[in-house]
């Protein structure tokens, strides 16, 4: 029978905490940029201009057809040379920067589809009503359609954020240390890998599961 040894966990907590901050930072940036960019792409996809909507469709289908791990690696290989071409050597950790870019662009493709469905769920009559009051198409979108669409999409957007939170663990492939990376390395060093990964899994579970409970409550509130 395997003898569990939990003794190295208390000592590792400060590192794990630091890792969790890194995880949350990547998650947060990807959510914010992903939703902003996703909204733009969703509106491009709904555009009557064929060129614009095809470009957007290409973006969405492209990112959704590639494994996230590969996107991460690609951007890790591409972003540094791109950045140094633009501004010389950045002061920021290049791995973190490429993780930000990769996650934001990748998530934008998923958010774009959620947002597009949300926009389409707002009835055409609402658009007519906005236009009939003298609003421009842009004003109607911003003041009438998007606020309603986001309200309806909120549960889905949050669910996507929970998936994203878990997916950030993949940055270990580019050697970036976040929560999972710290857990893995500490466990490896102290020979308590199993315990450390069990603990990390439990933390992921508690955070993700409480968040999804929150989403469910919110959903119930929104539909009542």
């Amino acid at each position, binding site marked *: 029978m395997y003898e569990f040894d939990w003794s190295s966990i208390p000592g590792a907590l400060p590192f794990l905490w630091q890792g969790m901050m890194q995880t949350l930072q990547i998650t947060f940036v990807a959510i914010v940029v992903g939703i902003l960019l996703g909204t733009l792409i969703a509106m491009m996809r709904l555009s009557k201009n064929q060129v614009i909507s095809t470009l957007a469709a290409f973006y969405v289908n492209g990112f959704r057809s590639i494994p996230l791990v590969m996107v991460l690696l690609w951007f890790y290989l591409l972003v540094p040379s791109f950045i140094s071409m633009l501004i010389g050597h950045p002061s920021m950790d290049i791995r973190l920067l490429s993780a930000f870019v990769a996650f934001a662009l990748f998530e934008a493709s998923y958010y774009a589809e959620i947002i597009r469905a949300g926009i389409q769920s707002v*009835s055409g*009559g*609402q658009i*007519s*009503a906005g*236009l*009939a*009051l*003298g*609003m*421009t198409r842009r*004003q109607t979108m911003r*003041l*009438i359609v998007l*606020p*309603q669409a986001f*309200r309806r999409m909120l549960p889905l957007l949050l669910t996507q954020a929970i998936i994203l939170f878990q997916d950030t663990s993949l940055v270990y492939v580019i050697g970036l240390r976040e929560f999972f990376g710290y857990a893995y390395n500490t466990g490896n060093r102290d020979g308590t890998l199993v315990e450390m990964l069990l603990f990390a899994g439990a933390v992921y579970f508690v955070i993700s599961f409480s968040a999804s409970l929150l989403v469910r409550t919110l959903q119930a509130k929104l539909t009542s």
Partner: protein
Amino acid sequence: MISIKKVSKWYGAFQVLKQCSTEVSRGEVVVVCGPSGSGKSTLIKCVNGLEVFEEGEILVDDVSVGARHTNLSKLCSRVGMVFQHFELFPHLRVIQNLTIAQCKVLGRGKQEALEKAAKLLEMVDLSEHAQKFPAQLSGGQQQRVAIARALAMDPIAMLFDEPTSALDPEMIKEVLDVMVKLAQEGMTMMVVTHEMGFAREVANRVIFMDHGEIVEDRPKLDFFESPGTDRSQQFLSKILSHSG
């Protein structure tokens, strides 16, 4: 005020409007009726550019609706429209429904917009509901808010697209009462409706449409008293046989 000249419109190969022409002068109330699918809603939506038409011309206060250089948003801000399904903005409170376009389109200050909104809510007898959301109101109340929302823009004319046909019978009167009051105050109105009682009470003229054509366009008394075409007689007998 509103001048419709030989307007035609197609959905693909199907012609929904055939050479429709009519005039609505300042202060006039014109009721448009006809069987479903006759093109009456499409015609009224052409007046403020919600539907495009392929042939003909529509002038609203001497501005051509279909012309390329026309600022449609500006035109729309001067013509109020009331929809069959109300189309209140569900994420905004009643009072905000009335102020949003005043502020964002006309550039009115918040205070001015609020005062205007309060006055109009009082007119439609809904002052106590100002802070509610549309979903908390009955259909009749929602439609009265929608009328107030359109009036908040100080329109030069009002278009009504079957304003009572989505309402339960007991709520129709409260909406019609508001419309009658508007008509009596001299508002220029174009009303698509089957409410012949309303037409008898306040309309100046009645237009009868069928298969995309304006079949009859006659003064109210003439329309109701003397028999017109077979088609309008048939239609009238159908919708009046139960309402008396």
